[in-house]
C-alpha cells in the first residue's frame, strides 16, 4: 500500500472511531438531561394521568445500555427513530432540515471561500499598505460584531427600508432556485460576513508565514511579480492551513448558525435541534448531535486528507 493511501485509510479509521465515541458521548449526555419528556410535550395544560400515559407509551423506562445499542443499530441501518413529540420519522423530518442547512451553507461557502482567499491574497500582496489595512480592518469588524446585530442591521436596511430582499428566509420544496436564492440572500450575506473575516485573516497569516520562506526570496530574486510569487510560490504551500481554516468555517456554517436561523426564521438544523431540546425530545437531539458530530469530523477528515495530498513529500515519495 502506498504510504499516502495508508495515511488516508488511517485517518478514515480514526474518523469512524471518533464518531463512534461521539455517539456514546451524545447518548450519555442526553440521557442525563434532567426534565421530563412527557410534561415538556404536553405543556402547561397536562394532567398527571395524561403525563403518566405518555411516559409509558414512549418507553422511557428501558435500561439505557439496551437503548444505546438499539439506537446505534438503528442508526447504522439509517433508522434514526421516531420523534417523541410528534411521532414523525426523524430521518425524514431531519433530511429536509439538513438539506436546507446544507443549501444555505453551500451558497454562503461558495461566496465566502473564494472571496476570503482572494482578499487574503490581496492583503498579502499589499501587506502593510492601505488595501491590506482596509481589508483587515473590515474583516476585523465583521468578526467582532455579534451575528444577531449583523442580521438585524441587514434586515433593517435591505428588507424593511429598501425591500430588496425578504426578511424571512422561508424556503420550501415548491420554490424555484431563483426564489430560494432570493429568500436566503440575507442569511447568506450575514453568514458570509461572519466567516469571511476568520478565513481571510487565517489565509493571510498562512501565506505571510510562507512568505518568510527562502524559496519565496528565491522567487523574488528571479524578478517575478509580487502577485505571481504569492500565487505560484506561496499559496500552494499554504494550502494545508488554508484548507484547515476553510473546513472549520464550513463546519461552522453547518452546525453554528442557530442565531442566524432564529433571526431570519430559516428552517434549518439549528432551530430544529433547539426546538427539540426544549421538548426533551431525546431521539431527535441525539440524531442532530450525531449529524453535527459527523459533519464536523467529516470536514476535519477532509482537511486532514487534503493536507496529506497537498504535501509533495507524501504525494511523491522518494
Amino acid at each position, binding site marked *: 500500500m502506498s504510504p499516502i493511501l495508508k495515511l488516508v485509510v488511517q485517518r478514515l479509521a480514526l474518523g469512524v472511531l471518533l464518531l463512534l465515541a461521539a455517539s456514546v458521548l451524545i447518548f450519555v449526555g442526553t440521557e442525563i438531561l434532567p426534565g421530563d419528556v412527557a410534561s415538556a410535550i404536553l405543556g*402547561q395544560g397536562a394532567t398527571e394521568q395524561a403525563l403518566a*400515559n405518555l411516559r409509558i407509551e414512549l418507553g422511557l423506562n428501558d435500561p439505557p445500555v439496551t437503548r444505546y445499542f438499539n439506537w446505534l443499530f438503528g442508526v447504522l441501518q439509517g433508522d434514526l427513530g421516531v420523534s417523541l413529540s410528534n411521532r414523525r420519522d426523524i430521518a425524514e423530518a431531519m433530511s429536509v*432540515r439538513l438539506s436546507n442547512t446544507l443549501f444555505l451553507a453551500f451558497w454562503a461557502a461558495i461566496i465566502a471561500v473564494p472571496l476570503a482567499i482572494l482578499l487574503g491574497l490581496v492583503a498579502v500582496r499589499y501587506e502593510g499598505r492601505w488595501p491590506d489595512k482596509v481589508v483587515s480592518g473590515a474583516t476585523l469588524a465583521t468578526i467582532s460584531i455579534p451575528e444577531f446585530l449583523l442580521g438585524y442591521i441587514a434586515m433593517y436596511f435591505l428588507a*424593511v427600508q429598501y425591500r430588496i430582499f425578504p426578511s424571512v428566509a422561508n424556503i*420550501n420544496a415548491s420554490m424555484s432556485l431563483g426564489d430560494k436564492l432570493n429568500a436566503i440572500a440575507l442569511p447568506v450575506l450575514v453568514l458570509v460576513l461572519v466567516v469571511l473575516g476568520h478565513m481571510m485573516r487565517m489565509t493571510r497569516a498562512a501565506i505571510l508565514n510562507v512568505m518568510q520562506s527562502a524559496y519565496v526570496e528565491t522567487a523574488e530574486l528571479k524578478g517575478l511579480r509580487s502577485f505571481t510569487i504569492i500565487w505560484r510560490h506561496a499559496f500552494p504551500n499554504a494550502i494545508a492551513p488554508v484548507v484547515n481554516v476553510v473546513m472549520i468555517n464550513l463546519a461552522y456554517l453547518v452546525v453554528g448558525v442557530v442565531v442566524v436561523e432564529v433571526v431570519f426564521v430559516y428552517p434549518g438544523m439549528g432551530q430544529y435541534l433547539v426546538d427539540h431540546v426544549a421538548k426533551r425530545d431525546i431521539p431527535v437531539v441525539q440524531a442532530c448531535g450525531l449529524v453535527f458530530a459527523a459533519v464536523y469530523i467529516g470536514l476535519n477528515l477532509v482537511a486532514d486528507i487534503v493536507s496529506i495530498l497537498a504535501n509533495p513529500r507524501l504525494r511523491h515519495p522518494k
Partner: protein
Amino acid sequence: MNDELRYLLARTAQGKHSRRAFLGRAGALGLTAAAANSLLATAVRAAGPQKGGNLVIGLVGGESTNSLDPALAASQVPYTYLRTSGDTLVNTTPAGDIEMRLAESIEASDDARIWRFAIRQGVEFHNGKSLTAEDVLRTMQRHSDEDSQSGALGIMRDIETMRTDGNVFEVTLRTPNADLPYLMTDYHLVIQPDGGFDNPADGIFTGPYKWVEDQPGVRHVLEKFENHWDSSLGHVNSVEILVINDATARNSALQSGQVALMNRVEPRTADFLARAPGVTIHSTPGRGHYVFIMHCDTAPFDNNDLRLALKYAIDREDMVDKILSGYGSVGNDMPINAAYPLFDETIPQREFDLDKARFHYEQSGHDGSPIVLRTSDVAFPGAVDAAQLFQQTAAQAGIPIEIRREPGDGYWSEVWNVQPFSASYWGGRPVQDQMYSTAYFSGADWNDTRFFNDRFDELLLAARAELDEVKRKAMYSEMGMIVRDEGGLICPMFNDFVDAQNETVEGWVTDPAGEMMAGFAAVKVWLNNA
C-alpha cells in the same frame, strides 16, 4: 359625502382601487385618517367578501415538534391551524354567545345534566367521508379516555357517559353544568373521522381548509375545501402559515409585505409598527392574564398578611404601561375581568399602596430573608421584566424579592405549579365557572395557588347548578372577593391580544375569545388584491 369619494369608496371596497390611494385622496378631501378608515371598513363589509388569493400569516408559537394531532396541540400555531382546518360542535360569537357549528341544535335536560347535540347532516370530511354522530362520539371518547394525552382531558372529566342516538350525540354529566356548550368550543375538540383513533395526526377534518403541506415549526399550507358545508366561511383560495417566532422578524415580515397578518405584536413596538405604511394594529381585550402565583399552603406564603403585602406592593398601572405598553388593563388579583359574562363591576380595584404593603409585611412577621420569585420569558412575554419591576416596587415597601430566572425549557414542568412563587400565564376560559374550576377549586387539576377554601368550593358548585343569573352573579362576585383577598394570586394585568394586518386584508372582527379573531382569522378575512 361627495361623489368622488363615494365612487372611490366603492371601487376600493371592490378591490379595484388601492387602499392607500384612497386614504390619500380622502385626506385631500378633508377626511381624517380614522374617519376614512372606518368609512372604508363599513363600505368593504357592505361590498361583501372578495374571493380568492393566497393569505400568508406570520405566527409566533410554532415548534418543529408540533403535530397535527389535535390532542397534542398546545401553542398558537396549532391553535390557528386547527381552527382553520377543523370544526367543533359549537363556537362562541364575538359577542360571547353560542353559535352552532357541527351541532345543529342543542337540548339540555332541566337539571342541565343531560345534553343532546343534534349533528348537522351533509357534512363531509376532507377525505370524502360523511360526518356522523358516531364520529363525534369517537372523537369525544378519544379526548376523554383516561389513557389519552389530550389537552382537553381536564374539561372532559365531568362527563359520566356518552352515546349516540341516531344523529344525536348525547352527554350525561356527573354534576349539572349550565356551561357545557362553552366547554365544547375548546379547540382540541375538532371532530375527526372515527375520532382519529387510526391516525390522529392525518390532518383529516371537516373545516373550510384542507391540508396541503405540513412542516412543523416552519410552514403550514392549506387550501380551500370546496365541499365545506358553510359557504359563508373561507374566502381565500389558500392559507399559508409561516412560523416566525422572532418578534423583530415578524414585524419585518409584515412591513416588507411577506405576510399579510401576524399575531402577538410586541406591545412596545406596536406604535412603531403602526406607523409603517398600510399596517393596522388590532388590539383585542381578552381574558388572558399575566400573574404571579403563591402557594397558599407553603411558607412563607401560608401567611395571608404576606400575600396581601405582596399584592399591595405591585404597581399595576406601571406594569400595564411598561410591560404591555398600554395594550391591556389592570388586574384585580382575581382571574376574572369584564370580558366574562356575569362579571361584577362593583368589586373595588386593588391599588398600589406601599403603606399597606409595609403594614401587612410587618404583620406577617416575615424574617426578612429574600423571597425567591421564579420567572422566565416563557411564563408570559416580559415576565422577567415584570418581575424586575415588582422587585423594585416591593423593595420600596421593604420587601426583599430575589428573582431567579429559570430555563425556559421545563418551566411548565419544574417551576410552575411546583415552586411556591412563580410567574405564570392563564389564557382565560369562556365562562367564570370553567376558570374557577380549572384552577381555584380545591380539587382542581391545576390548583396552582394551592387554594383550599370551603366557602369558595361550596359557592362554585352552587353557582354551576344555579340557573338564575342574578343569583349566580352574586355568587361569582363573592367568589371573586374571596380569591382577591385570601387567594395566592397576584394578578397585575390582563393582556390584550395585539395582532396586525397590512392593507391587503379585509373583514377583521375583534373576538375576545382569543387572538387572531379567536383563531378564525384565516377563515373569515379576505384579500382585497386577490
